[in-house]
């Protein structure tokens, strides 16, 4: 941050120290529940009296995962989560909830169950599957609602107390306030950019690791200071592809005169969506939000999965960077279709086939990025 912005600094600190508040909660006697992605209803977990924390391990060697997980098959983040759980680093967790909204998380659920059976160890947190399906069909919709009711029951059993409707309504209000704060930050990136993508990702991402009321307060404070900044110049880019929770790629793009104003990724622009309308049936409203708004690799059909991207790229986007790391075997299927769509609009795009999570960006990729940005700037 160029200016003094202690709120932004604190948010960024939480992003880099994702377990900090969870540890604090644990010390204060609040049980902590780990979640693995954006499709787990935070409101339900919190209403049961738990502190929900998104699991985001440090990138390092994974000896336990190497024993059980096939190399070059699971994504780095999934391997890291498995490794941390098996090695007992997260024994403070009362439970871990994984969604069915990605194949890797479903298999992580089965793997963790099996390790617990094969090598039982006191303290290993039990795992639960939230069997939310993301195909758009009346059957999947009805099924998802019943599985959300089931998740509520499971949380009540773990907590040993019922979840009252009024608690859910309060949680929705708290969570919506945090969503509003995120959206304010998003506007500061997109409409007239006042913060870079490299700065924005940690500020938004802290949403997953903090108490939402506290997050909302800090994010609004940070936004107020950032609003005083002048507009940042640069080629406006949107990043799409595999989920990315590290800023190396953004830093590389922005070094060469671009500014990442959005990403089709739940770590950033797509983290919150619209507010949950508690309305008549709050549980159904919570389900509806995670079914209809939360992105995942299993949203089907493609028309539903593409909707956000296709409308966003027409909103003042100069170019799109497709992040397809070597571990990718999903997003690559969509790339030719998206490329054709962009070509039809005259929007330039670039593919980055490198691991921008653990690894650095190669010189070759830097050169490609530099050419890409320069070319767009020249034609603007």
């Amino acid at each position, binding site marked *: 941050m160029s200016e003094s912005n202690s709120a932004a600094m604190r948010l960024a600190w939480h992003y880099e120290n994702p377990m900090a508040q969870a540890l604090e909660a644990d010390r204060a006697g609040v049980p902590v529940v780990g979640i693995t992605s954006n499709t787990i209803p935070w409101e339900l977990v919190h209403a049961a009296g738990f502190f929900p924390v998104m699991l985001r391990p440090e990138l390092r060697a994974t000896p336990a995962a190497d*024993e*059980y*997980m*096939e190399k*070059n*098959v*699971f994504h780095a983040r999934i391997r890291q989560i498995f490794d941390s759980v098996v090695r007992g680093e997260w024994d403070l967790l009362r439970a871990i909830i994984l969604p*069915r909204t*990605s*194949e*890797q998380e*479903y*298999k992580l*659920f*089965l*793997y963790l*169950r*099996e390790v617990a*059976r094969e090598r039982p160890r006191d303290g290993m947190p039990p795992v*639960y*599957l939230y*069997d939310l*399906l993301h*195909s758009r*069909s009346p*059957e*999947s919709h*009805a*099924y998802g609602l*019943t*599985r959300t009711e089931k998740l509520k029951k499971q949380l009540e059993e773990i907590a040993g107390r019922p979840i009252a409707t009024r608690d859910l309504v309060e949680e929705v209000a708290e969570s919506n306030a945090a969503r509003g704060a995120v959206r304010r930050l998003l506007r500061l990136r997109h409409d007239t950019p006042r913060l870079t993508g490299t700065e924005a990702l940690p500020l938004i991402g802290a949403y997953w690791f903090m108490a939402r009321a506290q997050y909302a307060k800090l994010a609004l404070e940070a936004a107020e200071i950032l609003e005083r900044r002048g507009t940042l110049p640069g080629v406006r880019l949107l990043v799409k592809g595999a989920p990315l929770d590290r800023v190396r790629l953004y830093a590389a793009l922005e070094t060469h005169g671009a500014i990442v104003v959005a990403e089709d990724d739940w770590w950033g622009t797509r983290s919150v969506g619209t507010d949950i309308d508690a309305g008549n049936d709050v549980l159904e409203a919570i389900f509806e939000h995670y079914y209809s708004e939360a992105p995942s*690799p*299993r949203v*089907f*059909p*493609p028309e539903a999965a593409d909707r956000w991207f296709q409308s966003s790229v027409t909103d003042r986007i100069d170019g799109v960077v497709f992040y*397809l790391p*070597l*571990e*990718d*075997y*999903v997003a*690559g*299927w*969509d*790339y*030719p*279709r998206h*490329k054709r769509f962009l070509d039809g609009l005259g929007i330039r795009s670039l593919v980055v*086939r490198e691991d921008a999570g653990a690894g650095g960006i190669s010189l070759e990729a830097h050169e490609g990025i530099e050419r890409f940005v320069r070319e767009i700037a020249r034609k603007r």
Partner: protein
Amino acid sequence: MSEKQLQCTVAAGAYQKEWFAQLRRDVFESRRPYAILQADMPFEIFQVMGLPAVSNQWWSAVIAAKRLAPKYLDAMNAMGFHDGLCRYCSLSMACTMAGDPGQAPWGGLPKPALLSARLTCDCIQRVFSIWAKKFGTEFFALDNPGATELPPRWWELSRYRWRELFERHRLDFTVAQFRTLIRELERITGRKFDPDALRTLMEGVNRQEEYFEEVRELICNAPKTPVRMNEQITNVMAAQWLRGNEWAIQHAKCFRDEVKSRVDAGVAAYPAEQLRLMWVGAGLWHDTDFYTAFEQRYGAVFVWSMYLAFGPDGYIRYGLEDPLLALASRTVSMNEQLHLPPWANEWIVDQAKRHRIDGALVLTPLGTKPSAMGNRFIERALEREGIPVLPVFTDMVDPRNWNAAEMIKRVGQFIEERL
């Protein structure tokens, strides 16, 4: 595969070829509709609706066996699909995308009335959507709920206690999707779905799989395997794609009879059999000769693959009052049963013991990543039971990184050092 020891193997191959030729004639000349399905789909529904169905994986294997995979996969990469994407499930699509039916096996796949797949992994919805768009036809997806209760020894529960084994909410959801699929098939075929016809077909499937079970027992109990793994696969899969129909049941019976007569006569597939090997994973379709490469030097014979063994354990369902529910139970956990912990490792160890397996080769296809998952658990479980394992890192249909000589050398070393 060079040598065919069983007459029914020749008959199975010939029948499949003629079946496909007839399908092409029906489609092109009579405009009869047909469907392309992912291998784990409920083919039974399509059968009773009179809609012939081609398995994506079978067609992929045919392309690989004809040594055409590199050409189509290279072409797919040139279209912008990167080389880390799955190959087994997309090779058939790649063949269609290439748009040269003259070069494709047996004239290639004609335009289907429907493509359909279960959304087990995150890729298949994408592959089938692209494929359907290329054909200008519809893709019907069945979503795949996760399993949360996976009790031990599923194969002892799956025949009679399938209602509880596969979790009622998953079965009900799957049946609901079946009903929507049936409405779609009624529209395509103009026929009305008949649950009694499905029940009769399911009873036929049971008979067919009971024959396969007899074959499996014969292989387990004979001093030496009476039928090579290659021939097991040809006979079983030709019938499985048409499971429950008269030809399939009769073929399963012929297969049983021929294997039994070989056992009764003391005939072994390889009389100098010394070691019994198991192949875990999909077949190595681009080089099936590999499976017989260790007989002469080591007396090592491939005895087991999932294709025959899974028939009885995975398909038989007793208590068919509600045939759609029973079919849902056959469909809903196939991936967990064959590939994922705890079910796959536990079952494969049990199979290894029953087949008196000396060593296992486990395929980890890095070119088809979802199929590689679960393998370490299988390998660990086998090793724990004293069955040495050699992991094989290659693809089932893509030979571009396959070095047969090198792999034969590695397996030889494995046999010499560990078996």
